[in-house]
């Protein structure tokens, strides 16, 4: 187990090099740079622009040179300063990562919490009205564009006043709140974006869970268990579930990438200050240090997610050994 973990983590290192190099190359190759908006300011002279270009090493088009300017401090743990904001990349990105993890994590929990029982119900009541209803919900979740769904939710919040219209906490009262109030406030803001992001993931899991369950239920050992006189509840939870859930965990590893990509849009519409909004802004303003550091964070999150999926699989399925 330990050697497996170490090997997987080491394999992530070349991956990070390749991904960051490609990212840098694309940033260099794409026209324009961070100074574009500044160059359009009528109050700004050529000399100032030239000074800034030298300062940020934007005066060279050599990919290797530009990559080196980033890489050398980065391997020493220094991700530098953001171009657009006068703050270290670390200070900007740290909290954003936590916010994104909070949103995606709770969305994951939400989708699993609903997907497994719904998938099981759909399989047990196959082709009955309950199955069709669940099918409808999951197709709704699969097909609705997340931006539209987010806007609908915000509209719902604005019309009813039950939930806040976006954001992560009450921006005005936050500094006078007690820790408990802050916790509740964050939770309250989390509900709608979590539902949006969770529903999209849930839809996928429900379909998968249903088909796995149907297959499992038709197998001999289920008939044996039922014949032994076990209750239907026990057969389903103890015998069928463990077998049916196996492929879902494999999907979980892959679906992390989709989840993070989906989070970008949802974060943007809800004004959720996560990694998604940060990357979006950084890309549109060509804030290279932020883009690079975010890419590193995303790769790490994906590697970690896949690793967790593998470990979970080994725990649940005794046939799998991590060597």
């Amino acid at each position, binding site marked *: 187990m330990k050697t497996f973990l170490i090997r997987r983590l080491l394999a992530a290192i070349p991956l990070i090099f390749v991904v960051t190099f490609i990212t840098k190359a694309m940033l260099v190759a794409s026209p324009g740079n961070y100074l574009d908006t500044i160059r359009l300011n009528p*109050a700004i002279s050529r000399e100032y622009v030239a000074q800034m270009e030298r300062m940020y090493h934007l005066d060279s088009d050599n990919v290797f040179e530009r990559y080196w300017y980033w890489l050398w401090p980065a391997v020493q743990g220094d991700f530098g300063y953001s171009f657009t904001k006068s703050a270290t990349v670390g200070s900007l990105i740290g909290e*954003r990562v936590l916010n994104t993890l909070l949103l995606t994590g709770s969305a994951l929990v939400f989708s699993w919490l609903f997907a497994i029982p719904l998938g099981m119900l759909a399989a047990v009541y196959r082709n009955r009205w309950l199955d069709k209803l669940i099918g409808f919900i999951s197709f709704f979740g699969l097909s609705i564009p997340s931006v539209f769904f987010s806007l609908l939710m915000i509209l719902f919040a604005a019309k009813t006043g*039950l939930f806040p219209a976006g954001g992560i906490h009450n921006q005005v009262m936050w500094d006078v709140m007690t820790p408990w109030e802050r916790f509740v406030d964050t939770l309250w803001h989390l509900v709608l974006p979590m539902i949006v992001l969770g529903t999209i993931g849930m839809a996928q899991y429900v379909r998968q869970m249903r088909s796995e369950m149907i297959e499992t239920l038709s197998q001999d050992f289920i008939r044996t268990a039922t014949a032994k006189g076990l209750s239907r509840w026990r057969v389903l939870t103890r015998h069928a579930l463990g077998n049916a859930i196996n492929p879902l965990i494999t999907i979980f590893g892959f679906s992390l990438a989709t989840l993070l990509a989906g989070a970008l849009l949802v974060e943007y519409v809800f004004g959720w200050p996560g990694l998604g909004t940060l990357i979006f802004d950084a890309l549109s303003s060509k804030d290279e240090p932020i883009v690079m550091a975010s890419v590193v964070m995303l790769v790490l999150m994906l590697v970690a997610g896949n690793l967790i999926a593998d470990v979970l699989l080994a725990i649940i399925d005794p046939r799998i050994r991590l060597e």
Partner: protein
Amino acid sequence: MRKIVVAVVMTAMIVSAGCRGGSSGVVSGTPNPPFQGDPPQDAYVYTGESGVYGGTIVLSEPDDIKTFNIIRASDTATADVLWYNVFRCPVDYRNGGNPPDFDPGLCTKWEESPDAKVWTFHLRRGVRWSDGEPFSADDLVFTYNVILDKNVDTASRDVFVEGKNEKGEPIYPSIEKVDDYTVRFNLHRPNAAFLEAVYNIWLIPKHKWEQPWRTGRFADTMKLSDDPSTIIGLGPFRVKEYVSGQRVVLERNPYFWKVDSRGQRLPYLDRMVFVIVKDFNTVQSKFQVGEIDVMPRVRPQDYPLVKRMESADIKVEDIGVSYDTNWIAFNQNTESNPKTRKAFVEPWKLKLFRDVKFRQAVSYSINREALANTVFSARAVPLYSFVSPGDTTWFSDDIMKYPYDLARAKQLFADVGLKDTNGDGFLEDGEGHTVEININTNSSNSQRVETISFVARNLQDVGIKANAVPIAFGVLIDKMQSTFDFDALMLGWQPTPPPGPLGNKNVVCSWGLQHACFASQEKPSTEWEAHIDQLMQEIESSPDQAERHRLYAQVQRIWSEYLPEINLVAPREAVAYKNKFGNLHPVALPPRATWNCEEIYVKK
């Protein structure tokens, strides 16, 4: 069972949190945080309507701020949050004055020598920084020296340039401390607009930043990640909290140097909160549920929708024509690419673009009224020069106008030798080239994309094969300022206060980086460009204000005749806000709503 109980408790919690509602604090009548020390002996006395203490104003801001270092800042979000509110210049500018004009602010008065070469500023005595340290002439001298330091990256330095010395280095006015409360600027040549330049000196405390500056670490100061209590200014508020991508909270500066006519110290509000929300739909929702008090900028296309929200508590106010302008410029660059030796513009096209009659014909072909009514939701006015009619101080109406006139346009096109010779519906020049023009703008701005499609259709109506081609912002700026490979491009300018000739120098003068039709010319390529350059120079050195207005009107006249930029429309501005605030008088000049933040109060 236990699970059900937990679920019920959670729901109750969430609902109770939801019912708390209400964004701004109540008006307490007592300042919190309280004032400290005594008001300065020379306090500025504000004579307008008095208010009561307490409360918060919550504003939306579309972008995150970039820095607390006001000297290095160059973006609108940072300006919206920090200018006026946290930092002040030696003089103030009342955006909402009638007319908008300079105000003594931190000075008791200023004096200009008859030849406009010596400017003396008398500072108020007893003023304190937001950390309680005394403010004096040393701070002004220090800030000015920081701005002039060529190792400091600041856009403020350029406005002080007075020309070049023998070595080709820029020269600047020198500064001299006469006594602790008097500062004198000695200029090399007359500059009647020097106040406009002084309005770029956002004062920073010497006692705090001299050490880092002397050791070359000025760029590391006042970072967003720094402790907010180290951000010290002279504005009515100081930074309390900054959360990246979410909000900036300002609280009362307890040492602020203004009092009202009843002797109460300013500001009235306890706090200002800027909530950073990018998506305009979300901003509207937040405004509707009361999480935001003021939407400082309602775009023309959103106005009809926002206007419907108006009620007893909410006001959606039209604040007049914007200072913003937009335009299309044809490429008049006569030079060649130094690498390929190929001309930037094909010779037959260049001949057309440089022909003033061609540009005038294009201007007559554009139906500005219809453009305003469709793309700008009937919230824009036609624009024929680079100064918007919204700028009531400097706008001149004595300019050439180009009302929609197809016959006139066709006549002018015929005059420059364009004719449909092969009967395909498009005009050709004498050598048989079909006149095909690509109009570029940045694809990220949907309003601009719609505008160029509209203009392209207008041009097709008169036989010009015009295509609307939206491109990435970076590519567009490259085309305008360094690669010069375009036919026509469309963009807009957003002037910052104070409006006037100084802020437009780089746009109208032929050497300017933002002179879009032919940027950064070594020497003016036409007589009218040379004339404009010379007039702009005269405006700067003319000590007589009326004379400066006359000269600037002349620049606008030449501009409208020769059309280096074909100006299109100027949008109307609107601000949506809660009715509960007193002294909130939004104007079209940024920051629109909070230019008098120390005077705003919450009505009881």
